[in-house]
């Protein structure tokens, strides 16, 4: 018999303390122990991206992280990021462009898209496609997703395009 362990971490801004089996991956912990269903299971081998959540601010495959490895960490799911308003621009763009259909990949897509716009504010269409190719979608043709991300990148560039200050 293996030992259950108590873990303490922060999930969507709230401190939680829970007993888990070590083999429990982060997604099963979120879904089954905390009833946070926005974290989804698509393959459990780290390929499809449906389980993408944030761990200490970076996106990860929740199925390839053990809950016990998240001890003392900050975990954020789509619900948390959404309620914080962190994804508002992307969500609005996805909605306007119909960049989702069945919605199963959407949580992972949005979290990946959020990391993209933060890390590659000048990403070309081709770079958007490459970055997002870690998230599988079977419903859309990916194009609306790329269009939505492009819209957000463009809007941000326009907002931040101030004249370059001289030194």
């Amino acid at each position: 018999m293996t030992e259950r362990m108590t873990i303490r971490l922060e999930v969507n801004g709230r401190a939680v303390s829970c007993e888990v089996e070590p083999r429990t991956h982060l997604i099963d912990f979120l879904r089954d122990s905390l009833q946070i269903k926005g974290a989804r299971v698509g393959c459990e081998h780290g390929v499809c991206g449906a389980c993408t959540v944030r761990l200490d601010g970076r996106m990860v495959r929740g199925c390839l992280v053990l809950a016990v490895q998240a001890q003392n960490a900050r975990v954020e799911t789509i619900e948390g990021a959404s309620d914080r308003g962190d994804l508002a621009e992307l969500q609005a763009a996805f909605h306007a462009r119909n960049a989702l259909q069945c919605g199963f990949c959407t949580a992972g897509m949005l979290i990946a898209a959020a990391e993209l716009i933060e890390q590659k504010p000048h990403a070309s269409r081709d770079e958007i496609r490459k970055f997002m190719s870690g998230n599988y979608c079977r419903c859309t043709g990916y194009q609306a997703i790329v269009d939505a991300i492009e819209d957000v990148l463009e809007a941000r560039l326009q907002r931040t395009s101030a004249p370059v200050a001289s030194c």
Partner: protein
Amino acid sequence: MKAAAFDYVRPRDIAQVFALLEEYGDEARIIAGGQTLLATLNMRLSEPQLLIDIGALNELRGISVSGDRLRIGALVTHAQIEDSDLVRRHAPLLSEVAPHVAHRAIRNLGTFGGSIAFADPAAEWPACLVALRGWVIVSGADGERRIQADDFFLDLYTTALQPGEVILACEVPVETAASNHQFDELVRRHGDYAIVGAAVTGSMAATGLIENPRVVFLGTGNVPERARAVETLLETTALTVDTAAEFADALDIEPAADLYHSAQTKLHLSRVVLKRLLCKFAEARIEGRHEGDKHD
């Protein structure tokens, strides 16, 4: 699937890791980034009794330069390599290759040391380490060892790591002004394991001959494969854009078939990849600048 049950421990010091490895032997597995291990466990392809998480060993983190070597801690993630200025300056091959390693979500957790220890022949880092003439620094209860990359990858998923040993870091020589490198891989989909890939390194002299050439393939055999006949030829025969194809014809590796490609196809694709890499190698010298200088 859900993994079979195991116990988990996260030691605070490396001595504790050695003690546990001694006690549990084959029943224990080390987990670093877990990006390969957990997928394996989730499919119940492996059922260890104990996972030893080395994530608390801070001495395994960090990228640093000391003298003519760049040191990459075993726990450095692929994303950290991708984002590192030090790596870009001193081992730009790794910076260029990093975006090919799976996808960003995996790179955020997967570690360099983990990739080296697992030694998947279709992975990028083992081939790059051999191409850069790097070293693997390992530690065990009996102390530290320094193993040349050439001597580290022995067979499929088999390295020179002895039971009870842990990778501390890898080192590569710092790139010099004369160094050149090219990398490419063929994939059906961006981020997949390569069908075939190759890294070419060396210093190209004005004569077109290459000093210390390395031509290393991934995805062709059980370990990163050096195309030694091609390396020898590069040292003795001038490489130009027009002659690149002849070097590729001299390719002396014998790739095995995979799920989608016959051995003959893999050999052919290896030749094509090599020819194209050597072309770029020759071009880079002519243009006097390197691939790495261009924007991604």
